[in-house]
């Protein structure tokens, strides 16, 4: 743990088994206030499972999950969570999918639509507000899901491979947008990705997970100053970190 940040989220010795699949074996990690932390690990090691447990969708078998220092049993709705699948509801237009968190809060259809309409340009989805999900490309759906997560943003955010289906340019745009959001909202973000450069560019720290049954294999602190910019990606520190991560894998 760097510095003297307050811990927003803590996992202590968390374990999870599905029937005969021993998925997560003893994971402990922390996410500090206004911190950006990435998780990297092999496919199927249990990253999404960790998120499901943090958000309260499934119960840990053992261990403890603490929010703001205290173990919270009923965690649903305390964090905002962007799933690995886009999970857009097929019966709602994109704009209504994005506005859904507001509608759930009780905002009227019109007000909710008005509130989210401005986001579509930022996400490169202008003109697709009134399409249904099946009329969008994979990457567009992913961005729509990201928008929806942002609309529901709590100050702890869990993002599961949010930019996995995007091209380099769109991805870069989204990353920079996210960095801006992070400092503006003062959110604490836990981020799953398979893209090592992305992890370094965005994070304060990176957890490296082992294969199933998974543990935290290594914790890497990213010593790049904030605010970040793309020029840092050719800096010595960046290249070193990248090598280290590739090696540790």
């Amino acid at each position: 743990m760097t510095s003297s940040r307050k811990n927003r989220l803590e996992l202590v010795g968390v374990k999870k088994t599905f029937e005969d699949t021993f998925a997560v074996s003893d994971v402990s990690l922390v996410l500090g206030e206004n911190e950006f932390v990435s998780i990297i690990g092999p496919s199927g090691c249990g990253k999404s499972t960790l998120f499901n447990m943090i958000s309260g969708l499934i119960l840990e078998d053992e261990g403890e999950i603490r929010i703001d220092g205290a173990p919270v049993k009923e965690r649903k709705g305390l964090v905002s969570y962007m799933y690995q699948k886009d999970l857009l509801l097929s019966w709602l237009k994109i704009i209504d999918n994005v506005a859904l968190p507001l509608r759930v809060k009780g905002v009227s259809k019109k007000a909710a639509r008005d509130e989210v309409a401005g986001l579509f340009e930022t996400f490169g989805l202008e003109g697709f507000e009134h399409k249904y999900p099946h009329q969008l490309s994979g990457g567009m759906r992913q961005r729509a899901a990201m928008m929806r997560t942002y609309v529901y943003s709590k100050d702890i955010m869990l993002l599961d491979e949010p930019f996995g289906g995007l091209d380099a340019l769109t991805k870069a745009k989204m990353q920079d947008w996210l960095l801006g959001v992070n400092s503006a909202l003062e959110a604490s973000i836990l981020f799953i990705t398979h893209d090592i450069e992305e992890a370094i560019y965005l994070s304060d720290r990176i957890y490296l997970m082992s294969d199933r049954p998974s543990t935290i294999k290594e914790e890497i602190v990213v010593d790049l100053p904030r605010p970040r910019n793309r020029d840092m990606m050719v800096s010595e520190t960046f290249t070193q970190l990248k090598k280290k991560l590739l090696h540790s894998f």
Partner: protein
Amino acid sequence: MMKKSANTGKWPAAVFLAALTALWELSVKAGWVDAFTLPAPTSVLKALITELPGLRSHIWITLQEAGVGFLAAIGFSIALALLMDFVPLVKKGLYPILVLSQTVPIIVLAPLFGMWFGFGMTPKIVIVMLVCFFPIIVSLLDGLEAADPDELHLIEGMGAGQFQQFRWVKFPGALVNLFSGIRIAATYSIMGAVIGEWLGGTGGLGVYMLRVRHSFALDKMFAAILIVVVLSIAVFKAIDLLQKILMPWSADREN
């Protein structure tokens, strides 16, 4: 997509029906079947035309009973499904009773209905409801249960309570099933009213049918059946239309 070949309009049904009707007419006219066991379509049509003025009031009564009962059944089913979905205990307690309510032949209950609801429109409406609500609620509950757990988690994660989950995920996802149920029920609605009238009444198509049957006027009886069929199919078609309007995303899907 690309599968527009099926779009051949309504003529196959029409042709098929016309062929059937022609065969029927022929069988009666050729004397293969006796006119007192099956009247010829032309006699039925003739009876329909001469009787229609007198039938108007009967039709109106039946339509009212069927309409009120059917709408009540839809409302009741949705409300009950909501309740059953919210409170698993209610579902467990009530589901067997619902099934039970359908296994008792209505005609057996007829005398009891008379005792409980009197002899006006009420017992007929109750019978229509009883016949109609079951397919609706069974289909709807099955649809609600088949909701995608991930989608439910998503919205739960947004702080949605039970009602919000129902409103945003379960119910829209179960609309296909709901409409299956409603379509089945629609088909039964007019018939339910007729059965109700059959069990005692002063007007309506059921009463009319009983009377003409009593005097062996099979042509008039079939004319009344024809009206029941036409009315029922009209309701059925209206449901189809409603589904297209209420489920734009799936209509859209065809492109």
